[in-house]
């Protein structure tokens, strides 16, 4: 009984961790792309 409850608790913790991981990651991944990268891509394309 107790082990099952412990397992459920572990699963809930894992879920919380993964939710927060996604939030951190998505916060970073929704930032505006710096111009330097777009300029770099333009430069690479021009060099073709």
């Amino acid at each position, binding site marked *: 009984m107790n082990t099952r409850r412990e397992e459920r608790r572990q699963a809930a913790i894992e879920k919380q961790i993964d939710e927060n991981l996604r*939030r951190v*990651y998505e916060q970073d991944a*929704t*930032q505006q792309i710096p111009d330097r990268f777009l300029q770099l891509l333009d430069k690479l394309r021009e060099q073709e």
Partner: protein
Amino acid sequence: MTDRKAAQTARSDAHGDPRDELVEHLPALRAFALSLTREGASADDLVQDTIVKAWTHIDKFQPGTNLRAWLFTILRNTFYSARRKTRREVSDTDGIHAARQATRPEHDGRLALNDFRAAFDKLPDEQREALILVGASGFSYEEAAAMTGVAVGTVKSRANRGRRRLAELLHLEEGEEFEMTDRATLAVMAQNTPILR
């Protein structure tokens, strides 16, 4: 479209010049780079190197396969080979992410998320990487294993060790309430208490 969704649709994108699609993956690449370097300037240098490598070696990309996974693989290989070259461990600076976040508004509940970042930044490279690949960016364990060149079981155990360590660092093991559970609660808290601590 969420970034996670983009990672999934990226799998089926198989036509045209893959170089034209690079730009779509830059935000995810930056997020991955940040999780590895834990620091903005190094992350952007890493992304820049990755763009150049991907562009000049685009013939090595197999059309029809996952471009994002390919780019992530280049990025992590670049990160680790630069590390090996310098033989210099980047110091584990707890305040790095916090400093990067300092310019953002503090009244929207982001403080607790900073605690999560600070804890995450304390994990070893291999655990951060496993957690970002499977926990956050939506890759399967199999894909993450192929990208990192290890067995599927190794990715699983790294991710699980990382989760356990995070739970310890955030005191989740002690049954303490974890404040970052839902956005609605946070919004209410932010309205009522402009400064959370």
